[in-house]
Each structure stands twice: as structure tokens, then as C-alpha cells.
């Protein structure tokens, strides 16, 4: 096996980012086009969906069928475009780089900007004038009462209003059904035709069972949409090929026509067919569900049989494989989220985050790294683009050091991707969540960092965002928040002077956590029920394990596993705040700094004005998570345990549980920039630390910092976490690559679940902020996904700049 792999690896050495233009001119051209593409708002789907819903308004068609028909109508009628010579056919939208608009979710939020979204300062998204008119007069008015948030408001206006206060909790279901890994293997093996036949047969079989027969009927309709779309591509490609004069483009169009005649209707026979079938289905899922974290999954496993068959037969060269796989990478990057200006501040720069997972072990626990793993790592090295979000699973006992080092080398080369995931811990964690060993071993990364058995786990992993800042604020202010008036929001848990011990205070923190969790869960479940009522997902359900057997849509719990995810914002800042409270207010032995909790809260509320010595103490001497301090170690674990305790046994609307996670996208910067100071010494309007990462600029050792994170009980972080490390660039010598990989492996041996890197120094990032055009495509890791530095809002840029930097040569923390 290794011999064969090494043969491919030796071939791959010929390809470098520097010689892309001569060795792989197609990818070089596509990359250039991608970098230069401006994002355009695409309303085609919204137009067809709205038209269909208007027509069927009073017809009393069951919602699953009505929605399947609407989606199918769009898929069968949408325009077919070939923007470039990409080897794959189909696109998320009709634009080269499109932001699809989903009116049933949050699309109406760009209404105020219809006039100037194309020209706004931050991340403009081009909107055609005529399209703006259509939105204003035809599409938006129809959905005013019907968007999902409004349906929820009718049922639970109180909790919906709290959601709109923004700094209490967020339910991402207001915007999306997403965050899962479809089972593309099914499509490759059975073909859409096969799935459709199964649906027809079961529809007949269950004709007595109304709900099931409606489900199978809706699947059949949705599958027809996919077939129509592929057939239309084949037709259009053939038509354009006829008149095309450029021989290369002509040939590509002819081949695409042939490919799309075969797949995804029929089982895939070649590598190109398999990749294109996967892509077309991904596109069709976006017709039903918003373009957020729908993950291709473990494609080095799914696609391997097709690759190896063609490769062995001599029908497919390494160069072909790189071109087809690279084409997929660029296709996966063909869409961005529609972001209203108001949300830029909190969420700016986020991609659509389709996650690709490579390596790790197979279902039986054996080394799963194969030739295609290395080819796809090479593609990742050659194409430093925002999406897909590439993740490398590593099993320290089963995968080779060679593989570990190759992933490390790619990270050191493109300075950001892939992220590393620890198979030993993550498989254990999923087993602990009730997944069978075979299913747990077959996990894929979802969106940013979340884990779920690929194609079996509808994990809706970004359901709830908990604002830890506000929990702490309530505990310190007798249950009040800054946005809900003078009365306690849920419960008066005591004024600062009423706490005699740290334990008493922590009890108040715990109570407020429980109350926020209960309210967030209740609202999320209401959203879930409204999704069941208004947004069934027959198309995605058909490309998944479970629903077709159960005769039940994913949204009704048809999948094999049915968890929801809850993530936390501000972990390290709140942890350090609790440490500081214990150290300064409840530690008799502290002679350097002692304050009553009341006085401390006053200092914090005054943003430390007049408390400079306290501020200095907090910066330099207070216990901090990420250092070897034992108080901090204890409190960090206590917080992790608390999060698990309040969520893990809560039930969601699909019969699954809530998995706790710590990743933050750009939210930690956005929310941090709009709220007040914290007892940790963090001043008002300063970004929080990202994910599970210790607070920036605390003086600590790299290994100590890693050890602190690794020490956290990962069974209590089943949704995983994002640990962000920033290193100064080092020479990419084999010795350094090995050292880099060794540090990652040791962190994993100690229990770390995930880690991702930015190999950038302060200076480069500062330069890129001051002069964006000097580094137009600078790729950075945010907190679970990659982004172009230029597209991030200022708060997020500052957060990235100030992240602690470690100099790998000296091993030292470099202060800003």
C-alpha cells in the first residue's frame, strides 16, 4: 500500500503553487477568475419559489409536496450557464460568484439596502437594478408574514424578542436549515434514478399511511427536479459545444454533456462522473436549504473507488485527477452568504463553509489515508481559497507520521489550511454520544469544527449560540442584562455584596446558565417545529441515511442520529473573569490585590477608569486559562462540565439531544466589539477570544497553552471546539515540518480534539489591514473556517492581529 502511495506522492512533488501556471494552466486560470470575481446577489431561486408558492396559495397541497414542487420547478427551469472552463457542470447560482437569496429565511433583511448594497463599503454584493425591483414589488411583499422568524414570533413572541436583543442567545435556525453532511455515497452507488424508483415503490407500498406516502411522494418530486436540472445541463452543454470555436472549450462542453447524461441519474462509473454527480447534488441541496455548511464530507473515501479504478486502468492521470478535484474546490467556492450591512458588523466575512474531511481511520478503525488523500491535500496546497473548509483527521496510532507531516507541510505552505482533528478523542466523544463505533469512526467535520457520522447524523450543529458574557453579567448584576431594562430578566440571583464565597457566586452563574439554556432550547425547539411545518426537506432527506427507511423527513427525525448543536461565545474571557473574581474577591491570601465583589463590579462597569492598578494586576498577575495556573485549570473544567450538564440531556424537536461546542466563527469579534468590560481585564468593545482559545496576549508558553486545552474533558465537548494558534512563519524545512507535526501530535496525545493555525506575524496582518490591496488574497483561519483577511470587518481583523503569536524558532510568545 505504502509503495503505491509513495509512487503517487512522488508524482505530486512536481506540482507547486509556483509552477501552477505551467503545470496546471486550467486551475491557474480558474483561480485567477475566482479571485477577481465580484459577489452578485442571485434572486432566481427566490423568484421561482415565490411564484410557485403564490400559485399554490389556496390549493391545500401538503407542505412537503408543495415545497418539493417549488424546488423542482426552480431546478427544472433555472438557467444554465458555463462561466469558464471548469470541468464540472452546474452552479449554486446563475452567477460566477453568487449570493443566493432565501426569502423564507432572512433574505428580507436586505430590503433597506436594495438601493445601495452594490456600492456599500464593506463587502458589497452586486444587485441588478431590475432584480431589486422584483424583490421590492414581487418577492419581499409575499414573505412579510411568512418568513420563519415571523412564524415563530406568532408562537413565542417573548423568546423571539430576546433573540432580537442579540447578546443573549442566537438561534441560527432563523436563517438556515444546514450544518450537516449528506450521504453522497448513496447517489454515486444508486443514482438519483435509483433513489426515485425506491421512492415510487415505497409510495405505493405505504399508500395507506398518509404521512409516509406524502414523504415518499415529495422525495419523488424533488428527485425529478435533480434529474431535470442535470438533463438541462447536458442539453445546453451539447448545444453550446456545437457552436463553440475554441477547441478546448468545445471538448470540455462535449464531455460535460456526456457526463451529465449519465449522472447523477445513474450510478457513477468514472472519477469525473462521480465528482460531477456529487457537485450537482450539492447544488440541488442549495435549492432546498440555504448555502451554509452543507458538507461534501470524507471525499477521499467516497471518491476513492472511482479514482483507483480509472487510475489503474490508465484512463486517469494524476494531472487529470488534480484538474477534476481542483475544479470541485473552485465550484465549492462559487457561492457566498447574503449578508445585510447590519449583520456585517457581527458576521462579516463568513463563507458558506462546505467542509471537506480527509484522512483518519475507516469504519473498521484502520488507516484510511490513500492516494486520493494526498492528491486532495495537494489541491489544498495549490488552491489557497476560502472554501472548501479542508480538515485533516489524524489518528496518532493508526495514521503514519508521513501523513501527519504532509498535512503540516501544507499548513506551513499556505499558512492556514487544513485544520487538524484528533481521531482518537473525537471517535471516543461520538461513541459517548451514543453512536456505534463504526459510525463514530466514519465522522466528518461539519461547517467549522463540529463532528457527526457522515451521511447519518442530521446534527444541525449550529442551532444555538450562547453568549457567556451575558450569563456572567446577569450573575454579577442580580439577573439584569444591559438590554432588558432594570428588572431581572429571569431570576434575581443576588447582588454582588450578597455572595460570601466564590462557590456561592458560581452557583448564581450556574443558575443563570441554566435559565439561558432552557430559554434557548425552548425557542430552538419552536423553530424546529416551525421548520417541520413550513420547511420540510425531501431533497436532502433522500440523500441521507435513515429517512428513506423510516419514511420520515430529516426535519422530523428521520436520520439515524438527530442531535442539535450549541456553541458558546466568550469561553476564555469568562473563564478568566471567574478566575479573577475568585482571586481578587475571595482569596484572603492575596496581598497584592484585594477588592470586594461590589467594588470589583463597579470597576468593571466603569471600564476600569480610575482602576489602573487593578487593570495592571489583571493583565499581569491574575490567574488565567492557558497558563499553568491551577485555579484556572479547575475553573475552565468547571465551565466545560456546566455547559455539558445543562445541555447534553435536553431533548430537541427531532428526539435527539444537544451537543455542546466551542467555536465562534467571527461572532467573538463582533459581539465583543459591542459589549462592555469583563472582570478578566478585557475592556469594553474589545473582541472576545475565539473558540476555546486562551485569551490573546497573556504571557504563556505554547506547550502550556496547548496542554490547558488538551486537558479539558473532551467527552464534555461533543460538538468539538476551535483552537486557534498563531505562529510566526518558519522555514518549511523537513526538520521544521516534523517539529510542527510533533507538537500537534503531542497535543493530541494529551487529549486535544482540534487545532488550526495562522502562520502569519503581527506585521503582515497589520500591513494587510492598513493596505488591503497589498495582500488581496491573504487567507486566514477565523474560528473554524477560512476567510480572506480583506473581507473581514475591522473588529475581526483586530482580533486576528492581536492573537498571541508564537515564534517557533525561539519557542517564545511574541508580544504585540
Amino acid at each position, binding site marked *: 500500500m505504502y509503495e503505491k502511495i509513495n509512487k503517487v506522492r512522488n508524482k505530486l512533488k512536481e506540482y507547486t503553487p509556483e509552477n501552477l501556471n505551467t503545470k496546471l494552466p486550467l486551475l491557474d486560470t480558474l483561480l485567477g477568475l475566482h479571485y477577481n470575481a465580484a459577489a452578485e446577489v442571485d434572486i432566481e431561486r427566490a423568484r421561482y419559489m415565490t411564484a410557485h408558492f403564490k400559485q399554490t396559495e389556496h390549493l391545500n397541497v401538503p407542505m412537503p409536496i408543495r415545497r418539493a414542487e417549488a424546488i423542482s420547478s426552480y431546478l427544472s427551469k433555472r438557467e444554465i450557464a458555463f462561466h469558464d472552463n471548469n470541468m464540472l457542470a452546474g452552479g449554486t447560482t446563475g452567477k460566477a460568484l453568487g449570493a443566493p437569496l432565501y426569502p423564507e429565511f432572512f433574505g428580507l433583511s436586505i430590503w433597506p439596502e*436594495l438601493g445601495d448594497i452594490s456600492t456599500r463599503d464593506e463587502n458589497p454584493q452586486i444587485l441588478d437594478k431590475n432584480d431589486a425591483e422584483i424583490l421590492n414589488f414581487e418577492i419581499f411583499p409575499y414573505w412579510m408574514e411568512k418568513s420563519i422568524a*415571523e412564524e415563530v414570533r406568532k408562537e413565542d413572541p417573548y423568546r423571539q424578542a430576546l433573540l*432580537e436583543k442579540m447578546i443573549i442567545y442566537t438561534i441560527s435556525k432563523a436563517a438556515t436549515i444546514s450544518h450537516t453532511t449528506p450521504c453522497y455515497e448513496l447517489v454515486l452507488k444508486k443514482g438519483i434514478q435509483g433513489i426515485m424508483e425506491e421512492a415510487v415503490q415505497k409510495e405505493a407500498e405505504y399508500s395507506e399511511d398518509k404521512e409516509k406516502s406524502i414523504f415518499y411522494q415529495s422525495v419523488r418530486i424533488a428527485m425529478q427536479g435533480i434529474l431535470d436540472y442535470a438533463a438541462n445541463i447536458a442539453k445546453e452543454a451539447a448545444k453550446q459545444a456545437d457552436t463553440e470555436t475554441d477547441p478546448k472549450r468545445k471538448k470540455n462542453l462535449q464531455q460535460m454533456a456526456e457526463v451529465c447524461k449519465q449522472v447523477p441519474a445513474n450510478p457513477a462509473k468514472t472519477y469525473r462522473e462521480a465528482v460531477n454527480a456529487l457537485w450537482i447534488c450539492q447544488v440541488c441541496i442549495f435549492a432546498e436549504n440555504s448555502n451554509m455548511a452543507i458538507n461534501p464530507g470524507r471525499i477521499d473515501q467516497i471518491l476513492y473507488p472511482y479514482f483507483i479504478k480509472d487510475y489503474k486502468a490508465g484512463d486517469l492521470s494524476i494531472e487529470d485527477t488534480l484538474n477534476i478535484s481542483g475544479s470541485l474546490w473552485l465550484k465549492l467556492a462559487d457561492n457566498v452568504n447574503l449578508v445585510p450591512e447590519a449583520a456585517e458588523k457581527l458576521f462579516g466575512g463568513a463563507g458558506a463553509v462546505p467542509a471537506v474531511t480527509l484522512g483518519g481511520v475507516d469504519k473498521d478503525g484502520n488507516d484510511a489515508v490513500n492516494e486520493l488523500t494526498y492528491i486532495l491535500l495537494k489541491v489544498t496546497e495549490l488552491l489557497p481559497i476560502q472554501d472548501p473548509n479542508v480538515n485533516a483527521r489524524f489518528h496518532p496510532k493508526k495514521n503514519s507520521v508521513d501523513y501527519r507531516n504532509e498535512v503540516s507541510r501544507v499548513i506551513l505552505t499556505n499558512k492556514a489550511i487544513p485544520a487538524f482533528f484528533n481521531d482518537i478523542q473525537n471517535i471516543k466523544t461520538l461513541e459517548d454520544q451514543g453512536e456505534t463505533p463504526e459510525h463514530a469512526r466514519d465522522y466528518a467535520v461539519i461547517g467549522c469544527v463540529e463532528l457527526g457520522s457522515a451521511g447519518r447524523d442530521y446534527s444541525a450543529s449550529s442551532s444555538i449560540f450562547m453568549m457567556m458574557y451575558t450569563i456572567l453579567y446577569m450573575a454579577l448584576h442580580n439577573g439584569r442584562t444591559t438590554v432588558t431594562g432594570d428588572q431581572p430578566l429571569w431570576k434575581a440571583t443576588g447582588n454582588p455584596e450578597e455572595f460570601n464565597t466564590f462557590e456561592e457566586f458560581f452557583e448564581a452563574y450556574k443558575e443563570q446558565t441554566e435559565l439561558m439554556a432552557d430559554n434557548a432550547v425552548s425557542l430552538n425547539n419552536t423553530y424546529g417545529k416551525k421548520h417541520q411545518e413550513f420547511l420540510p426537506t425531501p431533497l436532502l432527506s433522500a440523500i441521507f441515511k435513515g429517512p428513506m427507511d423510516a419514511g420520515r423527513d430529516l426535519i422530523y427525525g428521520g436520520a439515524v442520529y438527530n442531535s442539535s448543536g450549541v456553541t458558546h461565545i466568550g469561553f476564555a474571557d469568562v473563564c478568566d473573569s471567574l478566575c479573577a473574581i475568585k482571586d481578587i474577591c475571595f482569596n484572603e491570601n492575596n496581598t497584592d490585590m484585594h477588592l470586594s465583589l461590589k467594588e470589583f463590579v463597579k470597576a468593571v462597569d466603569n471600564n476600569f477608569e480610575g482602576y489602573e492598578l487593578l487593570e495592571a494586576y489583571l493583565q499581569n498577575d491574575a490567574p488565567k486559562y492557558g497558563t499553568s495556573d491551577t485555579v484556572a485549570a479547575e475553573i475552565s473544567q468547571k465551565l466545560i462540565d456546566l455547559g455539558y450538564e445543562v445541555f447534553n440531556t435536553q431533548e430537541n424537536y427531532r428526539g435527539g439531544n444537544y451537543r455542546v461546542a466551542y467555536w465562534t466563527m467571527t461572532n467573538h469579534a463582533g459581539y465583543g466589539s459591542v459589549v462592555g468590560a469583563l472582570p478578566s481585564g478585557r475592556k469594553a468593545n474589545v473582541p472576545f477570544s475565539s473558540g476555546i482559545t486562551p485569551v490573546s496576549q497573556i504571557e504563556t508558553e505554547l506547550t502550556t497553552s496547548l496542554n490547558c486545552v488538551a486537558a479539558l474533558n473532551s467527552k464534555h465537548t461533543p460538538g468539538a471546539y476551535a483552537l486557534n494558534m498563531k505562529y510566526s512563519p518558519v522555514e518549511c524545512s523537513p526538520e521544521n515540518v516534523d517539529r510542527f507535526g510533533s507538537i500537534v501530535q503531542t497535543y493530541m496525545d494529551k487529549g486535544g480534539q482540534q487545532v488550526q493555525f495562522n502562520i502569519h506575524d503581527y506585521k503582515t496582518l497589520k500591513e494587510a489591514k492598513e493596505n488591503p490591496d497589498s495582500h488581496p488574497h491573504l487567507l486566514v483561519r477565523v474560528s473554524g473556517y477560512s476567510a480572506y483577511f480583506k473581507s473581514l470587518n475591522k473588529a475581526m481583523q483586530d482580533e486576528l492581529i492581536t492573537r498571541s503569536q508564537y515564534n517557533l524558532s525561539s519557542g517564545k510568545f511574541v508580544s504585540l
Partner: protein
Amino acid sequence: MDFIKALEGRTKEMQLSLIKNKLKSLKIDIETEVAGETLDNLLFLLLKAMGLLFLINKDYRKNIKDFTGTYVICSMDKKIDVSAIFKKIPVFFTKIDGMEVKDSIVDNATTTVTFKDGKAMADFLLSGNTDVIAGMLNNQLSVSGNLNYLFKFVYLLWLIPELLGINDFKELLSQPA
């Protein structure tokens, strides 16, 4: 509504000319208000203008075809209490889509926006959408009710300056008193 009532019985041409004159004087009032200190009346004046623009500008009116939202905009210091009710307005010897403005709070609002004070409201009107979030977090404003209605309303509001012949609110603000 008093102004609309006063139109009763006049010829169509006369009604039109009265409305246009009223808009001219509103434009001056708005400019004066912006140059002034408190800005408490700005919104009311803008809404008045909005209501009249619907009557005389067909393209603008197209935005509210059969639209029936009710908005309440008020301030915590009670200095601003305005309602905007979208409904058919009896002018030109018929009933057309329009909006009635009241300087009081009505029940059953689709969407209610509460500003901290006149300044917070002016900041919102003059500085653009981005600051809504900061405004909400700083308790400068809060919204209850259907957000989609607010999105639509903000869109309609931002069309006004151009229709009145004012290039931009911001430009208006920077004019000398």
C-alpha cells in the same frame, strides 16, 4: 388627516397644487429642523412628507399597493409619539393607497420602534443601517413586532430625500443653520 380633510371639495388640480405647496413647506421645515438642536420633530415631518409623496408620486405609491401595516415610533422620554397607518386615503375623488400620520400612539401596531430620545432617532435616520445593532445594544432603540415590516419601512424612508430634492440626509445635516 386635517390637511387631507381640507382638500375635500376642491378640484383635482387644486388638491394637487395644495399638496405640492405643502411638500415645499415641509421640505423647508425639515431643513430647519435638521439645522436645529433637538430634532424631536424630524421624524414626524418626514412622515408627513412621506404621506403626501404617496399621494402625488405614482412610482413611490407602487411600493405600498394594498399595503396595510401600522407602525408606532416613540421615544422613552415621551417626546416622540408618532404612528403611521398604511391604508386607503380619500383624495382626488377616489381612494388610493397612502399613509396616515398621527402624533399619537395607536393600538395594534405591526411593528413598534422605541428610541431612547430624539437624538438616538436622528442618529438612526441620519447615519444608516449599520448602527441599528449598536443602537439596540446601547439601548438607543428597541424594536418589537414584525421585523420585515421595519425593513420595508426603512427602505421607504430612505427614498424620501431624493424625492424631496434633498441629495442626502447627511448632506442636509452638514448644511449651516
